[in-house]
């Protein structure tokens, strides 16, 4: 249970995420921990993740927004910038973080990373090698993963 008062900044961000959600993205705080969010991102159309819904989890550490949110994929995804545990290699989650960024901007950047994988800055070298040497095969595997692990539930 989060005791005491949640910073106003987090309250505002949460309200806006719910009232004015980003297309294809939902982020819902857990009732027992308002710094912890269940996130779902729809695979961008025209990407190899199209038709999939990807579950993620996001946590705002005590020093947020001085420190970036922590976020990772829970759904298995075949992507050169995501490792086996779903951790994401994205500059704004590390050295390029700025307190002017928000949960919303982070989730939009992750969605953009799904549209434009970056095998030159890989987190998973095996996946990145396939991506660089045989892109068709990489895209096919990514589509297979999407079908097997990220299928929309009816």
């Amino acid at each position, binding site marked *: *249970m*989060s*005791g*005491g*008062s*949640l*910073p106003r900044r987090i309250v505002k961000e949460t309200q806006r995420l719910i009232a004015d959600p980003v297309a294809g993205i939902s982020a819902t705080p*857990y009732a027992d*921990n308002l*710094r*912890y969010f269940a996130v779902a991102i729809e695979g961008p159309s025209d990407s190899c993740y199209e038709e999939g819904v990807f579950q993620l*989890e996001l*946590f705002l*550490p*005590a020093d947020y927004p001085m420190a970036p949110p*922590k976020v*990772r994929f*829970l759904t*298995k995804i075949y992507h050169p910038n995501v490792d*086996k*545990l*779903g*951790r994401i290699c994205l500059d704004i989650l590390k050295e390029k973080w700025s307190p002017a960024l928000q949960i919303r901007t982070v989730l939009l950047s992750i969605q953009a990373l799904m549209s434009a994988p970056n095998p030159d800055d890989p987190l998973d070298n095996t996946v990145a090698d396939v991506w660089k040497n045989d892109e068709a095969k990489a895209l096919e595997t990514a589509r297979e993963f999407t079908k097997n692990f990220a299928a929309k539930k009816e």
Partner: protein
Amino acid sequence: MQRTPAGETVIVPRNFKLLEELEGSEKGHGDMAISYGLVDPGDTFLREWNGGILGPPGTYHDGRFYELRITCTDNYPAEPPTVKFISKINMTCVDPRSGLVQHSRLSATKNWNRNLGIEQILTGLRREMCSDANRRLRQPAEGLTF
């Protein structure tokens, strides 16, 4: 658990705490007296861990390497993980039939709180090997398992 200047208690969720623990384990522990890592590097929910303890010098455990299996349930870290010795050992806090560590008999787990983790349990077990009750306890032949 962390308290912000505004008096808010911040709870690190299970998965993010375990990811921190994993990153800590990958940095290693100076003398490598204890070690731990995921059984399956792709285990999304970070449940099953291998642990290792190097028997402390000056005891009957000296020179031995003990293998353990640590299981973090959904309730971790509200409750401590299940810890089981794979390597056969004779120790006051370990069930002699199953190798399970008895939480009530180890101070790290007896006084468990969510700021503790796998590292503190392994370190606590190694410290317990040096206690008066365990230091000179006769040990089974090396290499046996539970």
